[in-house]
């Protein structure tokens, strides 16, 4: 197994990316800044509170936001919710990654509903963080705006229960494959399903 979140030879260019980093823990902010410098992101705005981050968003162009969830006054969840619903212009759609240490009970719903692209749990490795940045960049989910939620589409494909688990939904299919009802397909029938056909309109 690779020790890298991304394949080691994969190229990623973050030289021009303007990063807004926000953490009320001074040392954590310093380490996070060092981590992103290592990724090649030297254009960083640093904020120690959500209020400072709001001021930066209103006055600067930012391409990526990485923020700690747990902060006094206004936490990361409320900041992203503000950004998505009241952020100025296109800033409302800036990709946002939240970092959390512990998921307190009172914040579980806020985490789900705030509109962040990702919530990443500490501890994590720099490899994982770089991978999440890449995933966010390549995120093709549409944005959704409803009365109660603005953010990336949270709907996911239902791939059924995990292996070995019974599904909880009435629509979950059985894991057992039953006996075949029809004879096996001929090879030409299988091939014809993949072969492009000329269509005369």
């Amino acid at each position, binding site marked *: 197994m690779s020790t890298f979140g991304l394949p080691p030879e994969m190229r*990623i260019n973050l030289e021009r990316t303007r990063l807004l980093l926000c953490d009320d823990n001074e040392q954590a902010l310093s380490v996070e800044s060092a981590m992103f410098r*290592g990724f090649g992101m030297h254009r960083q705005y640093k904020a120690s509170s959500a209020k400072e981050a709001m001021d930066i968003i209103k006055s600067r162009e930012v391409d990526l936001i990485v923020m700690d969830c747990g902060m006094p006054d206004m936490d990361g969840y409320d900041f992203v919710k503000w950004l998505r619903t009241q952020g100025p212009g296109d800033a409302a759609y800036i990709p946002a990654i939240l970092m959390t*240490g512990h998921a307190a009970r009172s914040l579980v719903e806020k985490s789900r509903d705030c509109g962040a692209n990702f919530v990443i749990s500490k*501890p994590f490795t720099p490899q994982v963080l770089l991978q999440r940045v890449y995933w966010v960049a390549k995120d093709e989910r549409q944005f959704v705006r409803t009365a109660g939620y603005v953010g990336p589409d949270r709907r996911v494909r239902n791939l059924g229960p995990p292996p070995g688990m019974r599904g909880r939904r009435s629509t979950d299919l059985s894991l057992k494959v039953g006996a075949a009802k029809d004879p096996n397909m001929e090879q030409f029938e299988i091939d014809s399903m993949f072969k492009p056909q000329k269509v005369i309109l």
Partner: protein
Amino acid sequence: MSDPNLFKVTSRLSEQVDRPGGMTAQIAMQRVNHEMSAEEHRSREAVGESLTLLETLCREQTGGMDAVYDAATAVIDVAGLFDERVLCDAAYSLCELTDRLRTQDKVDWSAVAVHVEALRLIYSVDPRNAAQFRPVVDGLWKVTDKYKEPSEEAPAAE
């Protein structure tokens, strides 16, 4: 209720990552290791300061569970960036304990003290040798799980 409005957003980040230049993930990690090594000493001191605060809170039994929770999250905030899993698991157990206690409007300083002593013990060794304390962390979770709420119990098998 109004229908959801779905729309496509193309971020500048998505255009930037694929531009020519940049670096490989491997080189990025080498650079990160170099950058972070300069932060390691100060970070370890910061974690130590959080542990000292936790010890003071335990000794004086002041500040309540909220203050303990905040100090425990400060441990994860910094140690979590260095992937110190055993220390973070112990701090996470303390966060979970204090979160459960405050949700249930309870206080248990002896359970908190056991966590803080274990955190200091794990912190005292080189992080590369912290795995030996995994059974200690398992024990901390048993203490924390004494305050598990009925709704958190696993549903009975059908």
